[in-house]
């Protein structure tokens, strides 16, 4: 099985073959490695690689498309890059020059809307302000464009990942 992923800023191609119970033979960017993986409970892996022991913990983010693993004290965000994977396809929609959807990065309440539908905005410009736990955060435009649609109004409670506006 082949896995493509982007992790710690690097793209990796990993060919993974399950040899025996827990033992995998992998080819990672052309280099062959043997790794023994034991899943203690869902998402918690004990990895042995050439005698070195690693605790690899999958961070499951419910409402987002960013995944991460914690290895020891370090956190590695990653993305699956397999063009055939559903997740990659989902993500592809968010790229390119097409319309981009602004999403709430955390649950909160919309306290201000800084641009009206039809307004031109530049990359980094604030479009809405969300408040949570008594702190406010500006949600910024990811590109130069025009506010095509506003999907939230002041006072609305929004969930993490909820669509807030579309910039075209």
């Amino acid at each position, binding site marked *: 099985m082949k896995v493509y992923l982007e992790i710690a800023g690097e793209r990796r191609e*990993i060919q993974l073959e399950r040899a025996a119970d827990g033992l995998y033979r992998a080819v990672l960017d052309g280099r062959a490695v043997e790794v023994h993986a034991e899943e203690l409970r869902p998402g918690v892996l004990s990895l042995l690689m050439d005698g070195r022991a690693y605790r690899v913990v*999958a961070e*499951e983010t419910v409402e987002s498309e960013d995944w991460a693993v914690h*290895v020891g*004290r370090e956190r590695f965000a*990653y993305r699956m890059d397999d063009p055939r994977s559903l997740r990659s396809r989902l993500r592809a929609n968010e790229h390119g020059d097409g319309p981009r959807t602004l999403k709430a990065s955390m649950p909160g309440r919309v306290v201000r809307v800084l641009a009206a539908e039809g307004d031109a905005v530049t990359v980094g410009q604030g479009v809405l302000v969300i408040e949570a*736990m008594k702190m406010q955060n500006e949600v910024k435009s990811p590109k130069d464009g025009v506010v095509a649609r506003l999907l939230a109004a002041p006072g609305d409670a929004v969930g993490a990942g909820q669509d807030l506006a579309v910039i075209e």
Partner: protein
Amino acid sequence: MEIKKILIANRGEIALRVERACRERGIATVAVYSDVDRAGLHVLEADEAYRLGAAAATESYLRGDKILEIAKQTGADAIHPGYGFLSENADFADACERAGVKFIGPPASAMRALGSKTRARQAADAAGMPRTPGSTTGLASVEEALEVAEKIGYPVMLKAAAGGGGKGMRAIAKPEELPGAFESAKSEAERAFGSGEVYLEKLIEQPRHVEIQVLADEHGNCLYLGERECSVQRRHQKVIEEAPSAVVGAELRRRMGEAAVRLAQTAGYTNAGTVEFLLDKDGNFYFLEMNTRLQVEHPVTELVTGLDLVHLQIDVAEGKPLALRQEDVTLRGHAIECRVYAEDPENQFFPSPGKITRLLQPGGPGIREDCGVYEGWTVPMDYDPMLSKLIAYAPTREMAIARLLRALDEYVIGGIRSNLGLFRRILQDEDFRRAAIDTGYLDRLLSSGPARECEREPEVKLAAALGAAVLETRRTVSTNGASGGGPAERAWKLAARREATR
């Protein structure tokens, strides 16, 4: 009076901590909860639990009327307010007394005497304890402010009498800045606290925040239980606390402790309280304010004194005289506490509420965690973002730091962001390690730029990539995902949900 049932008017870790003490004494517990806290641990572990209302604190944990009603209906003898919410509300303490329900804290009169900072400064004078030079009553006008400032000398601090959390506070370097600052601080205080009263005090440069824990019974006995150093602050919020302070020796401890006890006794204080001081570079201390409740950071005092403050609070509330004398209070070892918050250090510390999808908690020798969350818990966006208090105890400060770092390595919080990485950075910082800290320390550290990325070892990166790949393939081949589903399954659910809501 023996207390048989306590209503805990709080949530999260502190509610659970009080429940545990109650259970140890055979006292029944009544929890209260808002709609978003139904699945909270403090509800799970209580003997009884009642709904207060919607999530907003004003609809739930600040509803003293409802809480008192529940206390009466359930036959609770006493109410423990924890910290925050109603804990320093003198009117609520009064209402409890009228209803014949013991409020576990000081009498309303003592709260009032110490609640306003100007009145507390008067009390400090009455107790003959050092405070920062400056006014002890509200400033009537800019002219009076200029006069006071001239007398004490610049730089000065303008502060709201009803203040807290840095609101209505301004540092002023020269006379020209005063008029503008006076007006803006007044109106900010008016908006935040409903009182525009401001006063002036001399600005202490690079002070340490050192506070004294006091404990007074209802028979006139009052003790000090050593100090806590809380100089590591961000925007006037404590981040790391420790006991003892690395710079407080036995003699200074005694002088600060005795001053704190005098203040408490002057105000007719009972139960646990904390007298906060600024400590300057020359070892002079100045009264800052008194917190008339149990503090978040009380565990570090418990670990170095070997005492249990919540048990002692209940003893005092039961009318018992203190069984300890001052000479019985000894400090041993060193304790450091980290306030673990749901906030994103990489995104200006913005709160990060949401579901904790993964939680691995540290343990082992010398580690105490006072925690109010669990894997699967959704951190509500309506309250303080504190998840947990991670505390290390060891024979020395150096070992306590090493132990905390070890525990932080064991700790994983997934699904939401946390400030665990910030603690690693502080605990590894040379200045912190040699205790060269003051209340400006953390802001300086943070403004010195982002954490130096240690070069990640290639093997660790390799392990991360392989681990992610193994996890992904397992998710993909498993027909029946784990609880919550693996990433692939979740992506599918996410897509399905989008389709459904389109």
